[in-house]
């Protein structure tokens, strides 16, 4: 956790220039998908978008959860947490079940529906660049420092400080700090987040917990069930044998 990095996005600083959008496309070699970046949406060729809500501009991208639902549901482990904290995807392992898309509480992963060998596509927080000591594309491109990169604890400090120093300017909540167990993308905003199209009714519990509560019962069901069935097998067999013996002795008596 100490060395894990992430990004903080301050909506109040964003001017909606779209530099992050362009840079993301460039870094990830993605083709152009829309003439007007403000009208684009997340897709297999778009990992981050800038959205316009009146005067306010905001970004959507993978939240890089601490305990990601997508990582926990992937049966072959094609989606993993990187050492940097980013949630990364290995297409060679993927079998294409799309459970990650279904499970993601933020509905982020996209799919290459048009291809015969499709991949899951989403932001990977420029994991390779970060490991090579560079900034993620969107951070490097941002002219207003609306998106900044850093160690998670530092980012949290900064966010808290900003909320505190200017309580009128900010809605008092750091989105992404606790949602679905928290993640590596923090967002602070002047208005409540549901007004900006963020999923707002998320629990603070990591999503995999919901599954684990059922999954952890499996060993006891298996062992208990096995014992119960064996016992029933033996008991009913014995009962039938007794009944048969009784029948045959009765029969003899009557003869």
């Amino acid at each position, binding site marked *: 956790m100490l060395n894990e990095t992430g990004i903080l996005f301050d909506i109040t600083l964003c001017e909606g220039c779209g530099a992050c959008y362009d840079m993301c496309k460039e870094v990830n070699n993605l083709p152009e998908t829309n003439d007007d970046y403000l009208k684009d949406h*997340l*897709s297999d060729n778009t990992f981050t978008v800038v959205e316009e809500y009146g005067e306010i501009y905001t970004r959507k991208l993978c939240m890089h959860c601490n305990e990601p*639902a997508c990582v*926990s*549901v*992937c*049966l*072959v*482990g*094609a989606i993993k947490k990187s050492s940097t904290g980013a949630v990364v995807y290995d297409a060679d*392992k*993927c*079998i*294409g*079940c*799309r*459970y990650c*898309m*279904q*499970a993601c*509480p933020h*509905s982020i992963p*996209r*799919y*290459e*529906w*048009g*291809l*015969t*060998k*499709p991949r899951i596509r989403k932001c990977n927080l420029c994991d390779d660049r970060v490991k090579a000591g560079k900034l993620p594309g969107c951070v490097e491109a941002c002219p207003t420092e609306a998106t900044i990169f850093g160690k998670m604890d530092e980012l949290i400090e900064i966010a808290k400080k900003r909320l505190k120093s200017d309580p009128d300017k900010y809605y008092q909540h750091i989105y992404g700090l606790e949602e679905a167990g928290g993640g590596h993308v923090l967002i602070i905003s002047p208005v409540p987040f549901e007004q900006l199209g963020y*999923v707002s*009714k*998320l*629990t603070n519990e990591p*999503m*995999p917990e*919901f*599954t*684990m*509560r*059922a*999954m952890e019962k*499996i060993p006891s*069901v*298996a062992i208990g*069930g*096995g014992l119960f*069935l*064996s016992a*029933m*097998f033996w008991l*009913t*067999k014995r*009962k*039938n044998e007794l009944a*048969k013996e009784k029948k045959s002795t009765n029969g003899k008596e009557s003869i």
Partner: protein
Amino acid sequence: MKINDILKPTFWKVVSVIIVTMGLFSTYYRFSRGLGLTTNLHDSVPWGLWIGFDFIGVGLAAAGFTIAATVHIFHIHKYEPLVRPAILTAFLGYLVVVCLLVVDLGRPENFWHPLVMWNIHSVMFEITWCLICYTTVLILEFAPVVLEKFKIKAPIKYLKIISIPVVIAGVIFSTLHQSSFGSLYLIVPGKLHPLWYSSLLPVHFYISCIAAGLSMIIFESFLIARAFTKEDGFHHTELKMDILSGASFAVLIALIAGFLLKIYDFIGNGKLPLLTVPSTETYFFYLEILIGTLVPIFLLSYKKLIEDKKWIYLTSICVISGLILNRLNVSITGLASSSGVNYFPSFDEINITMMLVVLAIFAFRLIAKNFDVFVSNESEHSVNENGTAKSKQIILSERYE
């Protein structure tokens, strides 16, 4: 069976050939063009008809373990005649499910990855392994039928020795994966409509599959009684009313248990107000409960109706319909509002699904005609213990002679 008999066109043969032909074309398109062009799936609806149908298929194949447990573990030998049809149904049902899964996979060439790449935290991983293990169990359970046919006696002895552990393992694997299909949706509390989302989802799935699996076997008995006539050399395919009534009674108990659990769930989680919200989901929910639970419970609780084959048949259709509605409500209807898209399967999706169902029915016929699915050679017990059905006729003959 003469060639002429096979080629003689009947209504369903013609329909089947059309469905399979269309299905083959769709399959070709699906694999050559990818999912995007051939299905109506997209980023907001990653799972569609195929996954929904997998839930239905697995749910309806549940009789494979319930009947096996009833006969081999609880020693209620009255139901012995149902064991082989149930196992065959389960096996073919799972085959359809596996085929649909492979069709649905984006990278079907990697389907073997779960064998070597493990993520034990994934429900999908657990389901995959349970499916593999249970299919093996089904093969072991059905193997004696095949071996008998080819008169290979040696392995049957060993299969008999391991038969009880195999049945027990089968019940446990089934319990785990039937419920795990519900667990798949535990991770989407925010997306799945609260009418269906519940931490008890695995238990709901498990209980409903027991009722529906048995109903499927009852339903199938009628199909069998019709399709496999004496003229084809079939015996033991008549409707055995005492068995069907008994199975229907088990369905009734499972339905009541499921209903009570639903009530407990709704009261415990304060979901009752949801029932008065007018929305598509609410109507679908009512339809599901009405057709799949309330009507069958009502019908089956009349002694007269539970002994009447017409009503047993109609009830089994109700319960099966209820399962179809429930599984598709969970996998499609309940997720529609959170995805914001109204999904309807494409022509190709429907074609491929129908093709696999038709092929399964065809395989069932083929196997039933060539192997002793309806004759139970292990029925020593049933002859000894289940004298009731035959005693009547024995009395007749004794009196006569």
